[in-house]
């Protein structure tokens, strides 16, 4: 789990970091770099367990959540958040064909199908953080 803080105008009013949870280290690194480049504070976790640990430390403004992960998957992580009463917007991020459905189940604020277009990622994050 790493936290990157790189200045960005779009993220100036954000109250918490963006938490990225994905078991693929290359994806984790790529997404984190992209968002950091845009000035967001980013926290990464390689599975649900690490994700929950990150939330314990600092409640994020947004979670980008992968679906299939070892130890604790996206679904489990989301349910754990619910149980803990943590209300945080989630963007579902998956390569699965039924990404939309899963996103709906999670009551996600957005869905980011893998592989994703960079503008989509940025606009989603921006829109979510703006509305909150």
């Amino acid at each position: 789990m790493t936290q990157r803080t790189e200045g960005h105008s779009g993220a100036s009013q954000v109250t918490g970091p963006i938490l990225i949870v994905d078991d693929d280290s290359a994806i984790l690194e790529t997404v984190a770099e992209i968002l950091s480049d845009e000035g967001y504070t980013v926290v990464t976790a390689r599975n649900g367990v690490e994700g929950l640990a990150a939330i314990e430390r600092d409640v994020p403004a947004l979670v980008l959540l992968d679906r299939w992960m070892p130890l604790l998957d996206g679904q489990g992580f989301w349910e754990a958040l619910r149980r803990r009463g943590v209300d945080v917007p989630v963007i579902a991020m998956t390569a699965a064909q039924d990404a939309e459905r899963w996103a709906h189940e999670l009551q996600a604020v957005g869905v980011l199908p893998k592989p994703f277009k960079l503008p989509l990622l940025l606009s989603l994050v921006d829109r979510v953080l703006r509305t909150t």
Partner: protein
Amino acid sequence: MATPSTSAAESLSPVPSPWVALHGAVLRLVSAPTEAAVAEVLLSVCMNTMGAAGGMLGVREAAGSMRIIPAEGEVSDLVCTALQPLTAGSTALLDDAVRQSDALWFGSTAALAERHPELEASLVPDHLQAWCIVPLHADRQALGILVLVFPAARSLTAEDRVFIATIAVQGGSALDRLQQAQAAQRQAARMQALAEASQVFAQSGHNVEALLSQVVKRVSELVGGACVIRLIDSDGRHLRLAALYHPDPELAAGAQALLDAIPQRIDEGLAATVLSRGEPVLLPTVDQAALRAGIQPVFHAHLDRWPITSILTVPLRARTGAIGLLSLTRYAAEAPFTVDDQTFLVDLADRAALAIANAKLYTRTAEATLVAERAAAHTQRLLTLTASLAEALTPEDVMSVVATQVEQFVGETSGLIGLVTDDGRALEIVQMAGYAPGDLRPWQRIPLQPGIAAADVVLSGEAQFWESRTDLLARYPQLVQAAIKNEAWAIVPLHAEGRTFGMLSLGFLTPHVFDPEERALLGLLAQQCATALQRTERYQAVEQARAAAERAADRTARLYTVTAALAEALTLTQVADVIVTQGIAALDAIAGSVRQVSPDGAALEALHVVGYPSDLAAQWRIIPLDAPVPMAEAARLARPILIESPAEVAEAWPQFSEALNALRYQAVALLPLMVADRPIGTMSFGFAAPRTFDVEDRRFLDALARQCAVALERAQLYAATQAQARRLGSLAEASQLFAAANLDLPSVLNAIVWRVVRAVGDLGVVGLLSEDRKTLQLAALAHQNPEAREVMEQLLSSFPLSVEEGISSRTLRTGQAQRLSVISPEQLRSLIKPEYWPYLDRFGIYSLMIAPLRVNGEVIGTLGALRDNPGQPYTESDLTLLQELADRAALAVANARLYQQARNAIKIRDQFLSIAAHELKTPLTSLSGQAQLAQRRLMRGDQAPQRLARSLSIIARQADRLDVMVSTLLDVGRIEHGQFVLERQLLDIAGLIARVAEEVELDLEQHTLTAATGSQELMVYGDPLRLEQIIQNLLNNAVKYSPAGGAIEVKLERHGDFAVMTVSDQGVGIPAAALPHLFQRFYRAPNVSDHLISGMGIGLYVAREIVTLHGGTIDVTSQEGAGSVFTVSLPLAAEGAGGA
């Protein structure tokens, strides 16, 4: 002679004068009470006065003998001895003396011997010198002698003469007095005895026999000797021994034997004398020679033993004349009879005769009364007989009445009634009494020919009376042949309406005199009997006619009932039930069965059986038509077999006899059911008692069989039509159901078992072989009884059947269907495993079928059906239907399995595609993301080379990842198409493993990797890229499947000619059930989803292919939750092998 002075002188003189002594003696003689006293007086006076030395007194006895009374002293004894030759049993001495009228004087012994030479030997001269023998008289009767002997020779003086003469007179007078007194005494005693005897006879009452016994005993006691009474027989010519007595029974018996030997005619011998004169005959001494002459020599021994010495015979005289003789006999030493005895016996005989005559008279009177009473009784009995015969309804009754009545008339009898047969040629014995059945076997039918007693009676119309067997045999000698037990016969004809139609024969066990009265009575009896028989004949004829009419009506009614019931019966079951139950009712049978000829025509199959024990019913359920049993024979010969008694069975079908005995049927009717001269079945009926099947019975059975045959054929046709329709219906329905059930196997199987339940009942079950083909697993079960279904389901689930056990094992093994139509409980228990017995106990299994489910010739399971309740066994057509359903079920199973496999394949493919896409998109995501990021940065003007390089590095790595994935996928394609090839060379596998391990270790964060490949090169001949692919795959898997980290170990060892690599981890492990499938394409162990580990399920599939192509093996051992160990064995390259 005696004076007072003399008396005085006597008292004074020491030696009294002879006269004084004589005077004293005379006085004493007057009062001497006995002969001995007389002797004493006489001898003592002679000895005292005359100087006699001794002597004796001889007293004449009635029977011509002499009683000797000696004086005291030795001399007297000598005298007695010396004179014995003339005194013992003789009166010779006395007679000699008496003839002289005076005393005889012998001066010397020689003189005596001279006169009596007989005495010469016994006289002893030295002691006895002079003798005097004095006769003693009274009224000129010589009563005795006095013998005196003197010690010395002397002469007789005058005084002596006077003295002796006086003594003789006085002695004679004394003896006379004594004898008179004795006679008087005896007379008185005899009078007394006579009076007593009269009284005794009177007390003997009117029983002649008892009286006679009393008489002989009494007479014998009173007079002495053996006493015999012989009475004149009824013929008036012979004497009959009536009574005999002697105290010694042995002698009495001897006497009787002797009496039997002497003439018994009244006009011969002694009897003639006594009876003709009416006077007694006394033989005091019997002439032995004459006696012997009159007796047969064989009886002389009797006389030797008991020599008869004296006989006294007196007539027994009654008012009408002599009625017999009373005789007394004495033997040997006994005294002869006297005239006194004779007188007494005559008196006694008169009294006895009177008593006998009275008794006889009384007896005759009593007999007369008896005859009168009997006549009255006869009349009474005749009345009773008439009344009894009037009530007799059958010849048997008549015989019974006759036998009873005749027995009362004339004692124990046996009787026969014989009637002339219709053809008039014989006499048939219709009734008998008092005979054992075997006695008359030869006489059951007597030809009406002269020369046979019974026939003669009928032919002549005259009664015959045979009073003894001798009489009968004299007339009919041939009767000797027959066992005749009777001694007398009365054979009387039975007349009616002027003709003789039979005879009544009565036999008597003892010879019997038929008096006119009896003859008349028996004639009357026969007449009564004839009338009664005529009446019974008419009665029976009417009865028979009525019974026949009733039977005919009854049969018609019964046949109508059967016909009506058969008309309503439609199915085979109904028809069979009607045939058996109605047949039993119509025939009054206790058991019945109906069978049909099997479709192949080889056997008789039971359709319905009632009244047979279940084991026998089961045993005879199928009877081969060629079996040597009556049932098969009836069908084979197409004719009824009617067995009227067990004996008939024993004769014709010995092996069947035992079974019949077991059934306790006494008669059996077996009838073929014929249609167009062809047997289509049989029916049988068993009866509780032996019976005959008369013409009417046979007609009825024939009619019944015809009705039943038609009904059975109709039912068979109906059944065939129904079965066809049902089968078609079932199959159509089944096909429909299968179609409707789509390709869902449980639904199809459920539809099939319910179809079985509805078509053949009660239970249907499908069992399918397990994958390992070791057990038969319950796939579907239906039962019309939900409870039974539940129990069976529970049992089948709890105790699955091994393919080796149970009834289904045979079907599984042979692929053949089985039908156990009727199973006995014992048989069932032997076939079915004990765990299933509770079902048997509760619901039972009566009939059972099992059909195999076959797919392409392979048995994949069974379809079973069973019926719980007895009554309707499964038939061959049921089995055909079941097999057809089974074939459809098998097809359904096969289709369903194919469909399942196809669906699985599709599902797996879809899953794979989804997984593959996800897997491929993952590297693509970061690759694409990095490219877009680099592009954005460049556009922003951020050209920092480090960041760019980093992006490019990530892009390159992800491109490699994609390449590996795509290559693996391509490998799968190649493997599928058989295009997977190796490029092999000699290589050191140890070095290869070490290198790959090093590379993998670089990227590890949470794991440790230990490689132990040894220091030695291990050369294999293989494809280096492919082998590297395997090593990488196994190591990456070890990392991937231990998400929590841990130690990973790779080892290489040489095992013989193999290089053996093991890769072990401490990861999630693999469930045991998943191990066999682990190397299958697209397969992923079920626990990977729990651990959310991604993967396409192709790595190990390809790995196994590579190893196999190298001639090696790959295996796995694992414990879920503890880790896994993969082992790869590769053959080592041969020494010196090059790069071929």
